[in-house]
């Protein structure tokens, strides 16, 4: 009849009391279990979506911040350019796996045709053709290839020497190559045309042009469209097609080539438009064409916040870090609100548990005052009397918690399904972040699709940890009562 055995007998001999305690803990356990289930599910969604959004970040102008500036502020605000040195400095941070800085330029061609996909013939050209997007790169292995957005199917990537010297070499898509019968080793010609615009007629006038001859060193295949085919919500389809066509018509070249072409265009334009030339001369500023957009691939999507924090102080006024994971906040609305709600439920449930279980245990203890006094009069250590009560409560708690583990999880699944379905209507208007250095195409629907309440080991662990600890605390508080018991007063 030691205190452990007494504890177990205390449960079986007083079944009514045990059942009441079991029921109370079970009900509260369901709340805690459900709240933790939802918490875990939302955390998993966040990790999953952020993983899919990728670990990329860029530095760009903070338009929100600029909007806040008053006219007076503008007077004394100078927007500096992002220097190549700074972009490189940021690239050296430990969070960064590799990085690139790019500059884009659109050119047309008379000798090759652009890829138009399903929209063949639908697109009618007005004015100068600019079908080909030249994407200048500084990172010779090409980030898009390293990041599996594109796969090199033939030839090779750039050498650092080619990149630094601005050698006239290019990597094009297999679709573009097929359409124009081009192979690695072939050259193709784009035209850099300089136009002026007639204000009165609204017409473009070709001033001059020059050929840009590029040798194909590699051919890539797009990897992004494949996954999207299967998901293909029709509304998204058009956008996806458009993005795909642009990607198929992308021509990777070293940065200096683009800088050079832009410079040519600018200088020729100045020659053609004297008025403008005078204006520029009056300002007396040297024109720069090195408007690069940096792109940093981080080691881990979870590093995004830390990276942004570390970079922020290095940036010139009005610039900010934009991470792919930033988009999470804008598409995770329903999941976030569920996460918040479940957090409040969790705190409330823990609070209620401590209060209710504490009171129930205290009532039971007062009921058993005499029994406890007897143990003490027989010389039992107070610690063991406490141990006996803890066993009685914790064994029941363990059973109740184990039961509510499953039911709470089930309830959480049901509740969140209802909430998601209710939310579904209000989030029909999917929003896509398009443009800039980072392009993501995940939507609220993707977030909801990846939301799943599951019974995994980390949930089981978290629930048993939090649940049992809460019960333990709620039991220990009334146990102070035992420490203050005076057996003489109770028994004599």
């Amino acid at each position, binding site marked *: *009849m030691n205190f452990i055995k*007494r504890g177990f007998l205390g449960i079986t001999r007083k079944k009514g009391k045990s059942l009441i305690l079991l029921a109370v803990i079970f009900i509260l356990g369901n709340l805690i279990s459900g709240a933790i289930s939802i918490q875990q599910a939302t955390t998993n969604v966040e990790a999953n979506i952020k993983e899919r959004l990728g670990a990329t970040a860029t530095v760009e102008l903070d338009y929100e911040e600029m909007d806040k500036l008053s006219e007076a502020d503008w007077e004394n605000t100078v927007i500096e350019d992002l220097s190549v040195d700074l972009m490189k400095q940021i690239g050296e941070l430990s969070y960064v796996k590799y990085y690139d800085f790019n500059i884009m330029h659109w050119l047309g061609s008379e000798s090759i045709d652009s890829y138009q996909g399903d929209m063949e013939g639908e697109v009618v050209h007005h004015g100068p053709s600019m079908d080909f997007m030249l994407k200048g790169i500084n990172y010779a292995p090409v980030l898009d290839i390293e990041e599996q957005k594109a796969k090199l199917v033939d030839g090779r990537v750039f050498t650092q020497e080619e990149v630094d010297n601005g050698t006239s070499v290019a990597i094009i898509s297999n679709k573009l190559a097929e359409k124009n019968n081009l192979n690695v080793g072939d050259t193709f010609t784009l035209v850099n045309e300089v136009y002026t615009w007639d204000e009165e007629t609204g017409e473009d006038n070709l001033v001059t042009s020059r050929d840009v001859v590029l040798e194909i060193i590699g051919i890539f295949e797009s990897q992004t469209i494949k996954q999207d085919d299967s998901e293909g919500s029709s509304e998204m389809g058009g956008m996806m097609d458009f993005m795909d066509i642009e990607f198929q018509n992308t021509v990777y070249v070293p940065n200096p080539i683009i800088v050079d072409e832009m410079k040519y265009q600018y200088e020729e334009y100045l020659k053609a438009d004297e008025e403008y030339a005078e204006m520029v001369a009056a300002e007396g500023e040297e024109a720069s064409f090195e408007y690069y957009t940096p792109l940093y691939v981080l080691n881990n999507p979870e590093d995004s916040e830390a990276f942004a924090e570390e970079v922020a102080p290095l940036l010139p006024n009005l610039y900010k870090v934009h991470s792919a994971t930033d988009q999470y906040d804008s598409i995770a609305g329903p999941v976030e609100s569920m996460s918040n709600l479940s957090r409040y439920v969790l705190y409330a449930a823990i609070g209620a548990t401590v209060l209710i279980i504490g009171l129930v245990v205290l009532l039971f203890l007062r009921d058993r005052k005499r*029994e406890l006094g007897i143990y003490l009069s*027989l*010389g*039992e250590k107070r610690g063991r009397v406490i141990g006996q009560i803890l066993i009685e409560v914790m064994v029941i708690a363990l059973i109740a918690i184990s039961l509510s583990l499953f039911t709470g999880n089930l309830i959480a699944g049901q509740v969140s399904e209802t909430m998601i379905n209710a939310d579904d209507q209000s989030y029909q208007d999917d929003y896509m972040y398009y443009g800039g250095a980072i392009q993501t195409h995940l939507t609220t629907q993707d977030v909801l699709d990846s939301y799943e309440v599951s019974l995994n080991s980390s949930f089981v662990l978290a629930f048993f940890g939090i649940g049992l600890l809460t019960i333990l605390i709620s039991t220990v508080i009334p146990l102070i009562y035992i420490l203050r018991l005076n057996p003489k007063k109770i028994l004599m």
Partner: protein
Amino acid sequence: MILEAKDLNYFYQDGEQRRYILKDTSISFEKGKFYTILGQSGSGKTTLLSLLSALDSPHSGTVLFNNEDIKKIGYEKYRRNNVGIIFQSYNLIPTFTAVENVLIPMTITENDVPEDAKTVAYNLLDYIGIVKSKADRPVNKLSGGEQQRVAIARALATNVELILADEPTGNLDEEMEQEIIDIFKRLAHEHDKCVVVVTHSNEIALQSDQAFLLRKGVLTAYE
């Protein structure tokens, strides 16, 4: 001397004044004897017994068990290993059977407990007058006299030499009272225990080897 109380003082604070229940009270007990302590209601009998059984501590004075201060032994340890206490209201644990109630102190004490504790507990109950069929009943299904017998068996379970009882027959009829007193006599005389019983009853006092009278905080021999 197995138990000796020296100059015990115990009082309640009554406003500014101290109301002494025990004043410089001394008393001593030997093994093999059956003692009674008589006194009117409110005279402080229970108070004295609570000090002797280490359920309370005096404001001054000492209680010696085998010449060792029980404070030094440790009150809890003294209760666990050296003394068996019997109360007027039995104080058994109602959810447990008689034999389970007897077994409880055996798991608390540090004294040697026989291997077959359960058999010993049954034998002990049998000796006190509780047959096996009753020993396996929850104690709240036993009569008052039977319950007090179980309480005596519980006090004896740890094989102590000192039994202290506070009005053990206060709730029992005369016939039952005599049976219980006979058990105490047997324990003292046949088993060499020291049995101290607090009582109202002259009858009982007359049967004891030595009786004391507690009056106004002072103990005197009672003839």
